[in-house]
């Protein structure tokens, strides 16, 4: 874990794809923070349809860290994760409470 964090903040010896991943990680952390602040500061309720704002960044973070660590092999897994949860949350967002 310490290595991952150290690697994340160091600017040396980074492959181009690592830079992209780092930016995406930052973006998702930012989204997570914004969503948390928003939900605590407003009357918005966390329900099935809105849960994507939290689920998706968390899944994305997991996927991105995974790609970063297991560069070659991890990308398929990460893509699968993001697609699976993204589509799931999208369906919930649009169709809940009667999905089909």
């Amino acid at each position: 874990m310490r290595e991952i964090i150290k690697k994340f903040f160091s600017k040396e010896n980074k492959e181009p794809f690592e830079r992209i991943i780092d930016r995406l990680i930052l973006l998702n952390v930012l989204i997570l923070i914004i969503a948390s602040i928003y939900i605590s500061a407003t009357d918005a309720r966390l329900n099935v349809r809105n849960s994507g704002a939290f689920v998706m960044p968390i899944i994305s973070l997991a996927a991105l860290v995974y790609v970063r660590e297991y560069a070659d092999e991890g990308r398929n897994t990460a893509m699968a994760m993001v697609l699976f949860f993204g589509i799931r949350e999208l369906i919930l967002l649009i169709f809940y409470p009667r999905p089909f």
Partner: protein
Amino acid sequence: MSVRFTDPRELINFLEMIAKEPRRIVLKTISMRPGITTDELLHVVSASYRRITRNALYYHLSLLERAGLIRAEGSKPRRRFLAKKSICLVLEGRTIKDIMILVSVRSALALIILLALIFPSTSVYSTVEPKHEVLIVISRPLNDLYDQGFRYFLHRLNDTIHEMNYTTNFRLASSVELTPAIAANYSAVIVFMPNFNARYSNETTINALLTYLELSDRGMILIGNTDDVNRFLYRFGRKMGGKQENVTVVSSFTEPILSENYTFELNETATMVHEETNYTTTPPRRYPKDYDTFELMRTNESGSVAIAAETVDNSRFIAFTAVQAIEDDSTVRRGSIFKDFLRRTLGESYGKISVKSRDIRTGDEIKEGDVIEARVNLNHTPGKPEVYLEVYRGTVMSYKGEMEAKNDTYYVGSRTASKGQADVVIVIHVRGYGYRTSDYVHVIVYPNRKPAPIDPVLASLFIVSFIATLVGLIIVRREMEHA
């Protein structure tokens, strides 16, 4: 056949075999100790297996690395490979490339399952959380297999409960097994009394219900045909003390539902139910058709449960209707059904229901050709559940003596299509010419199925996260391929 490699020499052997004939692996189990290094491997190679080149070894080791089995350190000339952990892979009829795919798919699946377990239930986020525990008491043993009609009735009840189970948890119990301890755990009790039979409502049942009533102001609903309700109240009603106001009686005003007089040929629905439940007895030849249109309704905030049921058969329209209260003499008072029921269920304020722009009042006569057009909006008070009443429009059908099943009652609009759109739907059923509305106005209250609201900000954040990550991963993938 299973082969286990426990030292580098055997692993090298395996790798060599792969190098020669990559498609002839039949079944292998690889086991590597943690910490096996390239040096060890190379040492073994140079000592015993000279045919395998250094590059070939690196190639296969890098395959294993990509499969996530081992870890590489350093740059290529001095790269060291370390087994990450004890590895045990079972391979069957697969080449090394297949292994990689297998490994990646497996790890993807494992991760997805793991994450799905971490974020499993949509109900965690649901705004409509179960608020009530309602006990439905059937005045028969639940396993009463001798009465196919009753079994079918239970099926319908079960289906409806599952379908409607948004705000309330329902539990089904037989009056035979009902005890005060069981009844006390629920916020409301519904006693269903199809052919209420003294045999199945012993003193324990009565006492359980009385205990339940005495415990608090929680509600109880009695449902059944008039005879059953009266019979029950004769024994039960007088003992209720001052708790009558907590009891709502939903009763029919016609013949008993399960009467043998109402028969019809087995229809498709009944056949289907029969097959699903694997009845061991002979299939019933006749069902009371009225079960087909049974509906179970909603609970309101206070925990009292409004239930209405409708039944239709070939010869007549049978309806349960809500009745305001039980009078001291244990008879059912039927006056002002409609408004009182609304008032009890939904609160004090309600809107207009009109026939051709004139108000419908209890006792009003509906005439042939009348157009019912009503839309009722309750004043929404903060803190109370949002209520939107809708009455569908339609033309009253004419009455022609012996009515056919579908013409007996005119169903206005499509109830199925409306369930998700309004909090509460009131459907007025009108039998036909010459009948008074007090007899035939039938109230159905559907549960709150208003979808949870979408918050635009949170939805946007989700979309941004999803699309950005997906696009980013695609770019990363390309970058890697180019590299």
